[in-house]
């Protein structure tokens, strides 16, 4: 490292090459997630390179290196813990759409036939109220004007018509 501080690239290259297997072993021993080992080893190498001027050649090298390695492993653990706190792990990603298939044209036609049949059993006054308010989408006031009936009477007619149609359709199933 003393030579590396003086700019000896060959000595530095030898040193880092010798350190690599040891750093991998140390990180692997302290870090359970095997996917991140190389990332942390690279972080340690970058840190060693960035602060190589802090090495005192009168002191042993290994405590200097291990302090940096331990610090970077702790930083990685803190970063992971912070990220994990905002994430939820799921086995199967939830779908963003319903599993129900859209109705086919045939299904829609069958529904129209059933509704038409259910309406045919209604009394004339109730069928007229349903046609105007639910099919032609007139308001209560407009329907009252067309039929000459009161609003209260129309409400009762629609309510009874829907009840009768529902009973008819349920009887069909």
């Amino acid at each position, binding site marked *: 490292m003393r030579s590396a501080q003086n700019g000896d690239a060959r000595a530095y290259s030898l040193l880092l090459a010798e350190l690599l297997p040891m750093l991998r072993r140390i990180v692997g021993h302290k870090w359970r997630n095997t996917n991140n080992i190389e990332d942390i080893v690279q972080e340690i*190498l970058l840190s060693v*390179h960035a602060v190589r001027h*802090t090495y*005192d050649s009168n*002191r042993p090298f290994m405590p*200097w290196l291990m302090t*940096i390695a331990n610090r970077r492993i702790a*930083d990685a653990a803190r970063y992971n813990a912070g990220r994990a706190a905002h994430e939820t792990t799921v086995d199967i990603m939830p779908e963003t759409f319903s599993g129900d298939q859209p109705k086919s044209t045939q299904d829609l036609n069958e529904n129209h036939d059933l509704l038409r049949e259910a309406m045919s059993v209604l009394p004339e006054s109730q069928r007229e109220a349903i046609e105007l308010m639910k099919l032609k989408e007139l308001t209560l006031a407009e329907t009252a004007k067309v039929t000459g009936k009161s609003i209260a009477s129309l409400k009762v007619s629609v309510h009874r018509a829907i009840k009768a149609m529902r009973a008819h359709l349920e009887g069909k199933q």
Partner: protein
Amino acid sequence: MDTEDLVRSLTGDLKPVRRLALPVWRAMGWFGLSLAFAAGAAYLVGLRHDLSDMFTDGRFIVEFAAILLTSLMAAAAAFCAGCPGRPLWERFAALPFLCLWVASVVFGCWQDWSRLGAAGMAITPDPICLPTLLAWSALPGAAIFVMVKRGAPLAPLSTTALAALAATALGAAAMRLTHATDANVMVLIWQVGSVALLTCAAMLFGRRILRWPEHPA
């Protein structure tokens, strides 16, 4: 990037680096210059009129020496904290002198209580104390923060706290030379309290101030 490629890129364009001086020398350098600045500024601002009397008081001498030693040792500890592989106890080097400083002020409070009774413990607002301390500490503080940034950011919180303690303790020493405060309880609350407050505030910014370089040279 592959790790072997990273090693090649780090070693490819290697330049010589200037080794960091020993923490003790860096601390002495910072302390010497900052002390000269504080003494000069105190002389220009005007020394307190009873300063010669104060230096005949043994308790005041102990307090003043403890403040200066707290500053020096906190600076040395801050520089040690930025050097990997140094023993952990070095970060607590300022603690005995800090305790001596606080104890000497507390002892002064007890002396005031014995001499004057409740009147010696009267606490009045002193809103100028914190900004004055900040002004005295600003330049030494800026200098020490520039210096600790040269080290490794191994313990950013304790490093910035120690650097702030060193600068504010020196500021407190300058205030003891210029600011005539008789009641020790006022010194304890407003001066020592301000030092504690600024030290804690600096600690909060530790991780922002001291970071690992993202693009090493």
